[in-house]
């Protein structure tokens, strides 16, 4: 009897819960969900902006779905949701290197129908938001690889890779710093951004414009050999850097141990904090200089916003994207989170100059030479192949030539297998 009563109660509760839930959806606001990184100042900016969107749209409620901060984990989660054809989250924050993958899988909507205006965006950022000629995402903020250099040790940034090498070696020999240059050398995505910058500096690349693998060609070999020599005995990059990611690299530079550092813009504010940093006020930034046959370059990173292909309310989702990528919101993000806006016109304004902690002219120079990573649905796999081979070459387990030959072979096999 008590069992029967219990089950009746349970049914009642179920009905009540359903009624309130369903009623809630029909009677009150339409719901929209957004997922992205919301850590520290980023979270503050985002919550504030979503609240303003709610205010401007009284019939809409945006729900923030916090996802893991580690990019790999967020990617896994997205893939699980989207392969399951989930209609939520409606709007997704994508790392630039995922956009092609999600578009090719049909998980995000082409955006032309909504009449977006992307004239104002930096070319490299807009390129990374396209797949097969169609615009599938809107750039939200950009990240670029910067060469940080010490203004107390030299008068100007080195103009060539050879000059960088000499300056770094000189600094070690003169005893000014224990280390020359530090960069992200652990076996992870960061290593590929560093490699990409060296590739461009030597006039090479990973894939060409037609999507063919060119990472085993002479410029790439020169780039990898340069990096290998830099970390070998008597070089100017410490071999420990081969286990370092962004933060370890920053610690070394911040403690005054290195003359140069390759890192992202986030490090700027932290380096200027005199309470924690020994190099506050003695730092400037430039792009990684070119070798004789290449051009100065910076790897392009950052995030884009896209609309879930299975969203229940795509036009409303687009409105949220348009709102978040509008100039005012980008300015606020730049001021509070230090993230660079991808809109060219903002760099002409005093507002951005005041908002950004990092000198705008120096940053602008780097963004102008930014290169995107290969735009392909199998980017992560290509990158993983390269990470292993490049790391093997840098740790002396394989000659650069053999490493690149193997990498290129594996990459071609992958492209053939994936039907691209």
């Amino acid at each position, binding site marked *: 009897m008590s069992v029967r009563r219990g089950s009746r109660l349970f049914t009642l509760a179920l009905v009540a819960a359903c009624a309130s839930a369903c009623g809630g959806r029909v009677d009150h606001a339409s719901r929209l969900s957004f997922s992205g990184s919301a850590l520290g100042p980023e979270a503050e900016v985002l919550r504030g902006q979503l609240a303003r969107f709610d205010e401007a749209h009284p019939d809409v409620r945006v729900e923030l779905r916090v996802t893991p901060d580690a990019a790999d984990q967020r990617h896994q989660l997205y893939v699980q949701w989207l392969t399951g054809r989930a209609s939520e989250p409606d709007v997704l924050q994508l790392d630039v290197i995922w956009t092609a993958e999600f578009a090719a899988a049909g998980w995000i909507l082409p955006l032309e129908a909504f009449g977006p205006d992307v004239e104002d965006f930096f070319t490299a950022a807009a390129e990374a938001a396209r797949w097969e000629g169609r615009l599938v995402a809107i750039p939200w903020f950009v990240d670029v690889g910067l060469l940080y250099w010490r203004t107390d040790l030299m008068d100007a940034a080195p103009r060539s890779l050879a000059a960088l090498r000499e300056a770094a070696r000189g600094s070690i020999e003169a005893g000014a710093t224990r280390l020359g240059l530090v960069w992200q050398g652990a*076996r992870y995505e960061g290593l590929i951004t560093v490699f990409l910058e060296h590739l461009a500096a030597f006039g090479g690349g990973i894939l060409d414009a037609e999507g063919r693998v060119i990472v085993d060609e002479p410029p790439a070999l020169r780039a990898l050999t340069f990096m290998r020599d830099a970390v070998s005995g008597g070089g100017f990059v410490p071999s420990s850097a081969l286990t370092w990611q962004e933060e370890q690299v920053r610690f070394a530079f911040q403690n005054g141990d290195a003359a140069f550092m390759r890192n992202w813009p986030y490090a700027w504010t932290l380096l200027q904090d005199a309470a924690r940093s020994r190099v506050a006020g003695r730092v400037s930034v430039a792009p990684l200089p070119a070798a004789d046959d290449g051009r100065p370059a910076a790897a392009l990173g950052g995030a884009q916003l896209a609309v879930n292909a299975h969203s229940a309310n795509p036009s409303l989702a687009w409105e949220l994207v348009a709102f978040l990528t509008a100039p005012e919101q980008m300015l606020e993000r730049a001021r509070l989170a230090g993230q660079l806006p991808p809109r060219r016109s903002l760099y002409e304004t005093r507002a951005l100059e005041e908002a950004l902690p990092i000198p705008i002219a120096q940053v602008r120079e780097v963004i102008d030479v930014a290169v995107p990573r290969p735009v392909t649905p199998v980017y992560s796999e290509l990158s993983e192949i390269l990470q292993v081979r490049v790391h093997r070459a840098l*740790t002396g*387990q394989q000659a650069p030539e053999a490493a690149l030959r193997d990498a290129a072979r594996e990459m071609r096999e992958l492209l053939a297998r994936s039907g691209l």
Partner: protein
Amino acid sequence: MPDPMTRPARAEARLGWLLVSPALGLILLVSLGPILATTWEALHGHDLRLPWLGRPFIGLANFVEAAGDPRFLAALARTVAFAAVSVPIELALGLALALVMHATVRGRALVRVAALLPWAIPTVVAALIWRFIFDAQAGILTASLRDLGAIDAAFDWLVHPVAAWVPIIGADVWKTTPFVAILLLAGLQTIDPALDEAARIDGAGAVRRFATITLPLVGPALVVAAAFRTLDALRLFDLAYVLTGGGPGTATEPLSLYAFIALMQRLRFGYGSALSVTVFLLTFACALIWVRALGRLDRYAAPNEDSGPVAGPHSGPSKGI
């Protein structure tokens, strides 16, 4: 034509099955289910990044690919080598520790707690501790060795393809020796002290008594410990993941880590499942070998059981005395 004599018994049996069926179902669901699902997935070409290729049934193609995948074969060899190096060290140290604990009269509890501490620390935390010890910039060990002039100033354990194994094996030995010791201690405690006493009266020295009495009688416990440790070693994952990430290159990448990368990073569910199934088959085969070894040892040890209460911790109630 049911036999009237057995009808109640049969009904009881049926009831019995009925009562255990939820538990059995649950066991099937949580243990056999995933294994079967993974095996089925391993027979398909399924790449989450390439949904336009679908999920075709491709038979054993994934396993054939693995057999020709140098990274997989290298990981397999590495994993087996890791087990072959780390398990004997753990058994030797564990036996020594067990003998000490067994012989300790004063502060027994304290000694045991102290010995067990590393085992109680989560593997990921242990791995981080060892990473700090071996850190090239601030690591205690690296700095001391550098001060002594034993290693080069630029030497970094985690960048060297062979040296990177030292912290991994070190952490594994440090963490699991207590486990082995406790298992062996249980074995030691089942040995009748009278045997040792008798041998002593007959004039046998300590080494002789250890070799002819202690070692054979603790044998079954030793095999159990070896079995547990081998299976764990073949599934090595978290130490390598945290300490080296499998690097430099893939020099410290064990089988499970490669399977994880294929599954969760590359999102090749078919191929990754095939690799996981291979890990499972490997450990399963290894478990069978150990079980047989244990059976043989039991038969060999059986006569001893007549002469005293020396049954190891493995001996089930089915063994007649």
